[in-house]
């Protein structure tokens, strides 16, 4: 119950509760290989997509566990705590509008993937456009964009460990050892159980998260009152520091475009991420996806409430100084829980956050591994790889990807964790034309898509790099916060002036517009010179394949039954 976690040593009760849940999910992760048992795990369909047989219920938890990550529990409230609505609350409209968007196009991707055995979005691009290079571009983008997103999960786990008094001091190795151990265990059961592990653990994760958020919100409503919370937040955001307000309580007119483009850009990007596609493709039917688009907003409600906890931390004057003595907004929510909950329940909350980071990290590494195996290894290195060989390569790649993310987080600046995700969004959104538009029309020329992608990737990366902010760190000196500045750091924000104006917009959206412009112009040029457009491997009927004829639905069920006759399926 200490307000100041810094230098107060390890909290035994909290650590005990977290360890209990960690051991529980670890056992679950290894057990998962037997869950909904398949004849053999030696294929990407089984290891990487859980047998493609998950119903509405399991998919709900899997997608929820997949999409609502440490981004939700740590980064969004931290942004609300530090600078308010524009940098944090946009996540609410983002996670609202994402579902109508999914409802529209994901069933098409599911159908065409199911018919042709596609495992990754790049597989689809390869078949649709008959272009290995374009598929490679999509695959590489997916892998690169996933890395900072996995790193964000590690930042979340670190925040919890730091709050409990673990890590933070000593040399680099000792400091980060608990994080490395947790990740090694995660890597081990992902290696053996594949997508079944996070699918099973997601139940525990979501149960804990819902419990914690309900208790926290009831506590705030009864003991503190939301009116006071909003008043404190408004006061902080309007406080002028160095001639600028601290943040935004309600977006000012100069930031309407910023707020809107962050929400829409993030929503369009979310389902380009390989891990979202992986979770969707593991569903049993188109209707599993559509029903989930209706019920998944329950998680958005939770995200909004968690975001408000950033404001609660402002009201409660929660200290965000970590073990290393530096201020870190990522600690706002863990420290708030430490402050308002008894130790045992704070432990439950920390377990929820830590497991909430492990589940998506597992799915992301599986998705990145699928991409590497199908679209780089089999495509360019070993064209005749057997399914068993593919599964083996994917397992090893999942280890490599996790290790890469670990280096990312140990090496990179963690001041503004939400930026890690937004930076990933800048890249992944550039595959939208090839994937989403490709589901509807083959009008765009494959080379034009490649050129548009390349120009937008360079533009987005360079623009994001050029957004510098003062590299400031705040420490407590004699009980008073003192801020020191060491030059400037790059990738400081994901907003930049729209070219030719002074209106701030999300860089991903500007880059996408450039991407579209280049692709349209070059498509016209390539058509004029009659450049070869390649052969489309898909047919119009492939895009709505389990509807509307009754015969097809029955046949699709037969295919599933033939694949795994012994499988017991959850009621749908």
């Amino acid at each position, binding site marked *: 119950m200490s307000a100041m976690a810094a230098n107060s040593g390890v909290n035994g009760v909290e650590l005990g509760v977290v360890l209990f849940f960690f051991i529980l999910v670890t056992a679950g992760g290894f057990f998962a290989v037997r869950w909904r048992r398949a004849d053999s795990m030696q294929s990407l369909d089984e290891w990487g997509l859980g047998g493609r047989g998950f119903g509405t219920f399991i998919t709900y938890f899997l997608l929820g566990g997949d999409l609502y990550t440490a981004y939700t529990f740590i980064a969004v409230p931290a942004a609300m705590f530090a600078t308010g609505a524009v940098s944090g609350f946009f996540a609410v409209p983002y996670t609202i509008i994402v579902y109508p968007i999914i409802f529209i196009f994901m069933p098409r991707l599911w159908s065409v993937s199911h018919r042709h055995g596609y495992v990754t979005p790049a597989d689809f691009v390869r078949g649709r456009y008959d272009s290995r290079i374009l598929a490679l571009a999509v695959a590489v983008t997916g892998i690169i964009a996933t890395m900072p997103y996995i790193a964000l999960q590690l930042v979340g786990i670190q925040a919890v460990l730091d709050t409990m008094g673990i890590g933070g001091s000593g040399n680099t190795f000792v400091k980060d050892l608990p994080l490395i151990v947790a990740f090694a265990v995660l890597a081990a059961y992902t290696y053996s159980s594949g997508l079944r592990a996070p699918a099973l653990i997601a139940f525990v994760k979501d149960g804990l998260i819902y419990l914690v958020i309900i208790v926290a919100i009831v506590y705030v409503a009864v003991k503190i009152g939301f009116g006071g919370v909003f008043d404190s937040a408004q006061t902080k955001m309007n406080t002028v520091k160095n001639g600028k307000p601290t943040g935004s309580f309600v977006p000012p007119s100069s930031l309407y475009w910023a707020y809107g483009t962050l929400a829409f850009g993030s929503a369009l990007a979310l389902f380009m991420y390989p891990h979202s596609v992986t979770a969707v493709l593991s569903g049993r039917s188109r209707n599993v996806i*559509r029903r989930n688009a209706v019920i998944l907003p329950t998680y958005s409600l939770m995200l909004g409430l968690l975001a408000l906890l950033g404001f609660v931390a402002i009201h409660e004057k929660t200290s965000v100084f970590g073990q290393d003595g530096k201020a870190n907004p990522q600690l706002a929510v863990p420290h708030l829980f430490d402050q308002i909950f008894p130790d045992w329940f704070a432990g439950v909350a920390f377990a929820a956050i830590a497991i909430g980071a492990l589940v998506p990290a597992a799915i992301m590494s599986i998705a990145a591994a699928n991409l590497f195996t199908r679209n780089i290894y089999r495509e360019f290195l070993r064209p005749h790889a057997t399914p068993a060989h593919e599964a083996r390569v994917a397992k090893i790649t999942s280890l490599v990807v996790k290790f890469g993310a670990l280096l990312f987080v140990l090496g990179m600046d963690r001041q503004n964790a939400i930026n890690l995700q937004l930076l990933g969004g800048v890249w992944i959104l550039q595959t939208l034309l090839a994937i989403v538009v490709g589901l509807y029309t083959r009008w765009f020329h494959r080379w034009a898509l490649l050129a548009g992608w390349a120009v937008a990737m360079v533009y987005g990366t360079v623009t994001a790099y050029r957004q510098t902010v003062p590299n400031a760190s705040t420490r407590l000196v004699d009980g008073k916060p003192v801020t020191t500045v060491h030059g400037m750091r790059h990738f400081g924000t994901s907003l930049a002036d729209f070219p030719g104006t002074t209106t701030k917009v999300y860089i991903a959206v500007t880059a996408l517009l450039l991407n579209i412009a280049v692709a349209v112009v070059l498509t016209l040029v390539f058509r004029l010179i009659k450049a070869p457009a390649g052969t489309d491997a898909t047919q119009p009927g492939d895009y709505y394949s389990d509807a509307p004829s009754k015969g097809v639905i029955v046949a699709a069920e037969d295919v599933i039954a033939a694949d795994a006759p012994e499988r017991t399926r959850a009621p749908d």
Partner: protein
Amino acid sequence: MPSDPVERRTPLPEPRPLPVGVMVLAGLLLAIPLAALALVPTYAKKDPHLWGFPFFYWYQFLWVFLASGFTWAAYVVIARARRGSER
């Protein structure tokens, strides 16, 4: 799993797309939440408050439920059209 399930599933009747009217209606239902949240100036204000929540905050929470409702309506429209086409 064999490399291409399409071969195994033939000869099946080719599925037909839904009628245009149904697609347009479902599309409109799904576009409403997108349009509402895209219009940031309509809700970037503090008043009126509700249970201590400024308008900006409670309005967006409200849209969590409304958007889910509109998506459900689109689902019903499509599901009905599909059942109808089998009769």
